[in-house]
């Protein structure tokens, strides 16, 4: 066991964990941030996507020892408490979710896309979102909600 000082959603959090523990399980089991989901454990589904200094990463593939001083953003920290980003609001407005299990990962990938490309075309959405599986196949609404948010949420 070692002690880690992590920058999570703007706060320093101190955790005890084996150095090979994926960030996913530190978030879920040590910090009770259960919004980040486990789907495959091998980097194939995108359910566990978080931001590391703004870039989307698969937290199941990132050992806690490799996080260092990077700023980690999880779904819980995407917007200040009690508020929603335009993207989250688009997800609510367009009722994207079915079971909802993949949606934290979808949102984190989409948020990273919009941060770099505020007005993505379909090809950019394909490239950014192709690694996020949705077993319920909400893909048509995921695409629509990204466009919706990019347009400023106007219906």
């Amino acid at each position, binding site marked *: 066991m070692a002690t880690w000082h992590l920058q999570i959603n703007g706060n320093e959090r101190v955790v005890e964990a084996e150095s090979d523990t994926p960030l996913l399980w530190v978030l879920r089991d040590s910090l009770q941030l259960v919004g980040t989901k486990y789907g495959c454990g091998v980097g194939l589904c995108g359910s566990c996507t978080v931001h590391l200094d703004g870039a989307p990463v698969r937290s199941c593939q990132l050992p806690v020892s490799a996080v260092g001083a990077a700023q980690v953003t999880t779904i819980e920290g995407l917007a200040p408490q009690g508020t929603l980003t335009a993207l989250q609001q688009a997800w609510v407005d367009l*009722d994207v*979710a079915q079971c909802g299990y993949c949606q934290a990962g979808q949102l984190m990938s989409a948020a990273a896309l919009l941060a770099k490309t505020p007005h993505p075309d379909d090809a950019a959405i394909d490239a950014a979102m192709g690694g996020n599986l949705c077993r319920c196949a909400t893909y048509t609404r995921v695409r629509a909600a990204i466009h919706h948010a990019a347009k400023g949420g106007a219906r």
Partner: protein
Amino acid sequence: MISRRELITVGLAAGGGLLIGCVTPRVGGPAPATPVEPPAPLPDFAPHAYVRIAATGAVTLIAKNPEVGQGVKTSLPMLIAEELEVPWESVTIEQAKLDPVFGRQVAGGSMATTLHYDELRRLGAVARTVLVNAAASTWKVPSSECRASEGAVLHDATGRRAPYGTLLEVAAALPVPKPSDVTLKDPKDFKILGRRIGGVDNPKIVTGQPLFGIDQRLPGLRFAVYEKCPVFGGAVKGANLDEVKALPGVREAFVLTGTQDKFGLLPGVAIVADSTWAAFKARRALKVDWVLPDVKRSGTSGELARDANALRGQPPATLVRNDGDVAKALARGGKKLEASYHAPMMSHATLEPQNCTALFKDGVLEFWAPTQNPAAGQELVCKTLGLAPSAVVIHLVRAGGGFGRRLLNDSLVEVGALAQRLEGTPVQVIWEREQDLQHDFYRPEAFHHLEAALDAKGRLSAWKDHFVTFGLDQAQTPGNGGDVDFDELPARFVEHYQLGRTILPTHVPMGWWRAPGSCTTAWAVQSFLDELAFAAKVDPLTFRLGLLGDARQLPVKNPRLRPYDTGRMKGALELVAQKCGWGRRLERGRGLGLAFHYCHHGYVAVAAQVQVSKQGALKVEQLWAAVDVGPIVNRSGAENQVQGSMLDGLSSAWLQEVTLADGRVQQVNFADYPLLRLPDAPPIEVHFIESNVPPTGLGEPALPPTAPALCNAIFSATGQRVRQLPLLKANLRWS
């Protein structure tokens, strides 16, 4: 004051049925002991188990069924809210736990709308009626002069208005009418039903709040994995338990002998740890010596397929249906066609792997279970662990997908066994993806050896299907969800029809997979019909409409089902043909395909447009659906279900199969069991035909026609007929 818990007890004592009409809840407890104490707040008004109204006017509605992504946590309370006359935006939805007061609590068979549309509207109307009566008696006017609107009762003649919260004390003293005695709203006055309403959990989903099975956190929670034999039916001889127990973060490791029930508690090794990661890591270090069952031929997919294909032209083990004289009709002159269709086994692959959380304390085993069928889970737990139903409490938590997987409660009984052993300590069992894929209850493999004849006018005159599928062990019983319906098309639409069935025994447990039976049968039937249309040189739409014939109601054998309405089926087919522009000329390499299917009371026709490159690369350009399930409850949820089930049909037909080698499943994770990805998901148009029939469910019926529409489109693009799935393995090259 009577709490809801007590109400339920009373209701049960009165025979276990619904409370309505059985008891009259009362409000207003004993007077405060001393006048100086602040008055106790008025208790909630609860005319029955589904509605609670607080003195503040806050309305809580109970969502009775498990939510697995099919939208019932939203759509069922909408039915109550509509008749209760409360603004949807003002209500709070609460998930029920397993409780006999709610009757059937199952997420399965697309049944929630079918079973509860009328019932839940009536329950809303019961509560509204009591409140209207309460206002009328307060104002000393006839109830008929009062009406409810926006959470209040109005007396238009005098302009008086009483919010529901002000009527509770009076209402609680009034009799509760029987659901059959209340008046329902005229659908033209609906304010909630038929609208687009977002899922009630959306705000939590988009902010990552705890909701799902694996999100459950209790103080002192331990995390566990449970390793089972990779060959179905195996048992534990021994394991390196001491080594595993010495690993960091591991609390305990032990063997469970399990039971003989292949759908229950299997033999295995449990590892209990302080964190999920510690449990997963310990599992990698676990070495189990298994007692392997003898699986011989039944353990390898290639061998099973060879056996199934050898049955082509052979008599079936069981003659399921035999109309007219098929042999004679096939022997007559005219055009004859033969083809064999083969759909593989399939896993459910819910994105949230199987998991469950439990605590055994003071003789009570309490679960937080993402299950589709909690009552069956309770029964399994009682039987396996020797507990009375009253000692098994099941809280329903949102499940990250079901698709039929969670109708079976193996994860529930696993964690129950562990919790019993760890008495006093809560424990969560979570399956790694590999375990989830390799210990599923698979969709049974399906082979259809088809023969048919056309008469001189190019009409279908005879149809014969020797259907071969898998069963568990020796009996001639198909695996769960693997059978063909007795009334499956084209039965009843062709004079000479025969359906035979042979079951190949395997040792693999099988389970219902979204639109069971239909999901493979529709593909074979609608593909072969397409072959026949081309053989007859008749347009595939015209051929299908001709087969359905005049609009009429056909009786069905299953007494639980309504008659088959050929007019509704034709209506869907004609609408989808119109919407997709059927008959358009497309260049080679592009094609349109059609298919239709009826199941779960739903009539759905699908059209697909594909593009296939000369090298055989497939692009699905667009899908259309015309859906007749009667009036739509929640337009947003309904459209989501239709699109999702169509893409599920596309994903499975294109990409997925489960294969066996030496008795074990070969697929390991999403690399070799791929799911459809966003770039490959086409746009989908959904058109609802909203007739006045009682509405039915949408979790499944749009799935079965999608694969055949797709394959028929591929044929029209390339001339290649796909008779084996998944498409990924088919050669679609053309020149």
